[in-house]
């Protein structure tokens, strides 16, 4: 009995320490974004929304936030669409070297973002494309496509195959089958892929840093803020970034995982 209690106590302690380890830095970040003072370090002097007000008044930060959202949404949409096409093609048709094609599609996952960014930088320079949010978007599509492909491909099974057959039998052509039957049936995994891409793109720094020039995304803007020293304002914008990521996670949970648990 006592041993049992000890085990329970130990595992709870372990859990608390684990979550503390993961979440404490974030908690500190959020706490000191409300710091009534100019330094985001202990002691905590008192609450103020001043830094948040400054963030919202900062045009550069707001522009970066809009840029980040635009890039994240557009690149995730494209990555999902391309990932869906690839998954559909590879699971429904006998293609030459399909195993190799699968490996090639997943390959960017194994390469560091820095290498991908450098490679793209070289290529863009070489063909004379100027750096902009578009090039950042291309980079994000490249890193998110393998993820989207893997998630969607894993959820394509034989059950849907029969349903697609039924649709074709009733007169649907290839595109109608794909968009009226397959995509809606796979909606949970497509949404999961989309929201995950969105969070990855939203947080991504290296590619955004190397492939952008005048218009930058939020992580890049935060980085240049940091260069001028610690400031509760960076905590405030960091908290906002965190808040949005959490919101995305909750949406993922609500739209995707809750749907899946239904019969």
């Amino acid at each position, binding site marked *: 009995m006592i041993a049992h209690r000890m085990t329970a106590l130990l595992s709870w302690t372990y859990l608390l320490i684990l979550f503390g380890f993961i979440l404490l830095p974030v908690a500190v970040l959020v706490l000191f974004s409300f710091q009534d003072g100019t330094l985001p370090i202990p002691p905590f002097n008192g609450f103020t929304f001043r830094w948040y007000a400054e963030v919202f008044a900062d045009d550069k930060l707001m522009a970066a936030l809009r840029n980040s959202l635009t890039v994240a949404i557009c690149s995730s949409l494209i990555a999902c669409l391309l990932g869906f096409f690839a998954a559909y093609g590879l699971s429904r048709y006998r293609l030459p070297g399909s195993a190799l094609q699968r490996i090639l599609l997943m390959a960017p996952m194994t390469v560091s973002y820095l290498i991908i960014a450098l490679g793209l930088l070289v290529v863009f320079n070489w063909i004379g494309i100027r750096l902009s949010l578009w090039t950042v978007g291309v980079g994000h599509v490249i890193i998110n496509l393998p993820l989207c492909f893997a998630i969607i491909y894993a959820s394509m099974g034989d*059950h849907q195959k029969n349903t697609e*057959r039924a649709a074709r039998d009733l*007169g649907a052509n290839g595109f109608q089958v794909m968009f009226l039957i397959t995509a*809606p049936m796979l*909606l949970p995994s497509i949404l999961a892929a989309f929201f995950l891409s969105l969070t990855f793109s939203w947080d991504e720094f290296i590619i955004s840093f190397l492939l952008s020039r005048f218009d930058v995304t939020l992580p890049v803007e935060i980085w240049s803020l940091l260069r001028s020293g610690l400031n509760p304002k960076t905590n405030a914008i960091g908290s906002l970034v965190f808040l949005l990521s959490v919101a995305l996670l909750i949406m993922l949970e609500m739209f995707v995982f809750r749907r899946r648990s239904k019969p």
Partner: protein
Amino acid sequence: MTADVSLQKLCKTFDKFRALKEISLEIDAGEFIVLLGPSGCGKSTLLSIIGGFLDATSGKVLVDGKDMTSVPPASRPTTTMFQDYALFPHMTLRDNVGFGLRMRGMGRKDRALKADQFLDMVGMMSSAARKPHELSGGQRQRVALARALAVGPDILLLDEPLGALDMKLRREMQDELKAIQREVGTTFIHVTHDQEEAMAIADRIVVMNGGVIEDCGPPSDIYMRPRSLFSANFMGEVNFIPASVTGEEGQLIVVDTEFGAFSLSTSCFTAGTPSPGQALTLCLRPEQLRPTADKRTSNLLCRAEVVDGVFFGTHFRCHLQPLNASSDTFVAHMSQSSTVSPGDSVDILFDTADIIALPSQKQEQTHAH
């Protein structure tokens, strides 16, 4: 809304496995055909070829006289009802049934109207706005039927549609399928491995085994006058008695068995007149063996000991071991009121006209399955 089908020497080979071997069959417009056979006999392959989901290695499918070989499933006058129903999970029943009409360019209002009509026909009208996951197996099956019929196909292909239903529901749905088929007049080609289901619904049963058609005819013919040992065995319990042809006696053919010689009329030989000396297998159904003499069962087969008897409601099913013979036990259905008990000796009587005599050489092949 209905058409005849002609299958001409269809062959299908998967790598080295010959799934279909020169299948030829004529199906009339409006007929309810059942393709019956064990799993792996090629019946589903045949259905897929008619539906256009598989290409035949050689041979032709004609529908209403037109060659369907290079016509894709969507353009064929066929629709298929799949074993797992394959309903569209994200659409309401009305949208499911209306899907085929939508693909044919019918407007939203018209197709909703027509979908409702077909849902009404299968008794699912009240659930039109529901989604498939809210339904039971039997209900999904009805919706799948409505969806397949809504586009007005000439031929409906049914791929073991009742396979997933429990026994009682299955019997109910059989009657309903039959009634709906009569109502719409569409040619139904139905695949199953359940011989009772086949007898309950078919105008004509096609018995398949190992990629060939073993037998083909109305249910009563297939059961009473099978043309192959496989068919006789597959359609229900049967007693086999080895025999050989010894001679002729006017119009009758004399066969010799362990239990003595019998003279059989030529109509007993459903697979053709045998040659002298040929090895035969005589088939007798359990209900054709009787312990007491009546107007019909006048010939004595042998005397036998009752091994066991089980009451089945409509009859007593008994195992009988022939005395003074090496033969296996016979299965006989005795009347409900019979008072046999294990250890009793009874005479086994039968009518020579009930016998079906078939060539023996196919028997090994039959047992292999």
